[in-house]
């Protein structure tokens, strides 16, 4: 009995010691991940070990949506980590709180696509390395479109005609999974980007100042009604209990033609059928000039208070220059690269659509919307009201008024 105790104690001490390995630098990295990002830390560790073996990363991984902000707040008081990894929209928030170190002009930024560097630059100062991008819009089953001679709709009228045609041949126009309230929130923001913020970038500020109300604003009503358009043209009795993966599977199987979604669905599509042929187009807006939404995703930021500035720079250098590691990450997350010269090896049939829109300059940054209205406490709460309205327990006016009541907490 005694020997066993000492064995256990010894094991414990041994482990404790290995956790504080001597020699080399250990820098703290706080990573707010989505579930699809899980595993990038191992790829980065391997890449770092290959080039700079005596720099080690002490990872703290939290769920982006719910915990990153709270952790950052806490660490502002007790000591920020050396690297913060968030999403593109965190750049504006954290830089305005003055907790990020500028990395303008650093040599490794040359490895990043110019647009991505621009998107991470505020008032001439660059604050982060944007690593990959998600594309949001209407993902569609190319075979269904081809078989039924459908063309990409650019206006609402064309969309309506498309929906009528699909209904007449018995194909559900939209695949939805309103069970996931975040999907309602995401869809609504996509609508808002092309119908509200593209025309009026300061809309949200005017909303907060009381000059605009959801209840009386025609454009707010329009985007809420797009939700209804989807709801009326999907599996109404199932959507509030259908899992995301099942909805994606139905799109692949040809039971539905379109899905308003983002790159995160690609993994699911390919799991059902690795040869699934799909494309993407922006959801048509009232003006007929909708752009494909591009959202900078994983973003690496250096904290303003780090004592290991050089080591952090080395880490950023590895991330942007190790093309193999970058490709592994893109393949793992099924996202689009923002590092120059890296092509993911997974099949993405929608890439040619993306390239076409990019070439015509028809891309819009998701941050035009995400930096205006905060997700937690505002967008997600509005989604709950939209869900209630669609299910009939609230009226549209009540849902819109509820959004107005959250005015004060809508600022990111």
């Amino acid at each position, binding site marked *: 009995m005694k020997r066993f105790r000492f064995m256990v104690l010894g094991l414990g001490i041994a482990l404790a010691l290995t956790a504080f390995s001597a020699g080399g630098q250990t820098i703290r990295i706080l990573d707010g991940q989505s579930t699809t990002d899980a595993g990038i830390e191992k790829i980065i560790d391997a890449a770092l070990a290959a080039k700079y073996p005596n720099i080690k990363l002490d990872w703290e991984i939290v769920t982006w949506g*719910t915990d990153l902000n*709270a952790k950052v*707040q*806490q660490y*502002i*008081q007790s000591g920020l980590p050396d690297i913060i990894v968030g999403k593109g929209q965190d750049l504006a928030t954290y830089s305005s709180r003055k907790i990020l170190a500028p990395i303008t002009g650093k040599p490794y930024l040359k490895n990043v696509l110019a647009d991505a560097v621009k998107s991470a630059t505020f008032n001439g100062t660059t604050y982060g390395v944007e690593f990959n991008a998600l594309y949001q819009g209407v993902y569609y089953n190319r075979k269904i479109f081809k078989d039924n001679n459908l063309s990409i709709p650019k206006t609402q009228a064309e969309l309506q005609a498309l929906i009528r045609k699909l209904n007449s041949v018995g194909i559900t126009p939209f695949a939805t999974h309103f*069970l996931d*309230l975040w999907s309602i929130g995401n869809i609504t923001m996509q609508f808002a980007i092309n119908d509200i913020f593209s025309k009026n970038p300061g809309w949200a500020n005017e909303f907060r100042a009381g000059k605009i109300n959801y209840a009386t604003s025609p454009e707010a009503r329009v985007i809420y009604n797009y939700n209804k358009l989807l709801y009326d043209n999907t599996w109404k009795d199932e959507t*509030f*209990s*259908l*899992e995301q993966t*099942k909805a994606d599977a139905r799109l692949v199987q040809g039971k539905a033609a379109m899905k308003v979604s983002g790159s995160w669905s690609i993994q699911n599509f390919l799991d059902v059928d690795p040869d699934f042929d799909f494309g993407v187009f922006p959801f048509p807006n009232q003006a007929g000039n909708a752009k494909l939404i591009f959202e900078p995703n994983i973003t690496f930021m250096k904290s303003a208070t780090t004592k290991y500035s050089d080591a952090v720079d080395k880490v950023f250098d590895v991330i942007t220059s190790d093309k193999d590691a970058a490709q592994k990450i893109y393949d793992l997350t099924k996202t689009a690269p923002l590092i120059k010269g890296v092509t993911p090896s997974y099949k993405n049939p929608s890439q040619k659509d993306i390239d076409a829109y990019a070439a015509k300059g028809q891309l819009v940054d998701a941050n035009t919307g995400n930096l205006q209205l905060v997700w*937690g406490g505002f967008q997600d709460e509005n989604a*709950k009201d939209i*869900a209630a309205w669609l299910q009939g327990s609230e009226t549209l006016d009540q849902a819109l008024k509820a959004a107005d009541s959250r005015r004060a907490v809508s600022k990111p």
Partner: protein
Amino acid sequence: MPKPRFKLVMKVQYFSLVFPSLLLFTVGLILPMILGVYYSLTSWDGYTKDFPFIGLGNFAKMLADPHTLDAWWFTIRFAFWNTLIQNLLALFFAVILDTGVKAKTFYRTVLFLPCLIAPIVAGFIWQHMYFDVLPGFNALLGTKVNFGLFGKSSTVLLGLLIVNNWQFVGYWMLIYLAALQSIPRELYESAFVDGASFRIQFLKITIPMLAPAFTICIVGITVGSLRVYDLLVSATTGGPGRASTSIIYHIYNTALNARQYGYGSALSISLIIVLLVIAVVQLGVLRRREVQL
């Protein structure tokens, strides 16, 4: 007769056996409780260094805050139904297993197995049960029953009660079973000879002899239900909306996400007070009945 000096040494040695536990317990539980009371009287946000004193302001806010009242309402309903249902089911199955049904060990294991799973994992499993597996029966049987209990605020409590009972009925059943099995058969035999029916035997012999088991189970289930959190995080994330946010979940949201540590502390203190009151009342009532019976 030990000498006085020896006695003092003994006293010191006994004390040294108890002291580490006392210290740890005080620092780990009592100190936080006292600090909790202090913070509850401030409007501290958890991050800055100032603790603006606001007296009972947090407690007043608590009584007027619909989110807090909703959280309490949910927690109380969950605890109430759970205590009722879980006790009855546990007793029910214990009686069945006690009446010599075949394969008793098998049933006992089946009923008990679910409690080995962590509640956070159980919530995850049952999400898939409700939204994926049970609807599978619809496809097989051609029915159209809506199994998505977690998807509507009117049914989410039911959904959670099912999960919690699935997990823990077996656990409490073991206690009832042991108590049942310890009742001497002679009591039953003499009652039977006197012509007492099954029902009378149950009411007059079984129930009274189960009194200590009742105390343990009722108090245990109530306290366990009032502190529900892990299950909710994975099963419903407090939703839909706030329909299944328990008081502890609400404290978590308020303090850690909304940065109101002072208010959160006040909520914690109120929870402690409620727990103590319920424990005292329950123990008082149940112990008295124990003695009576």
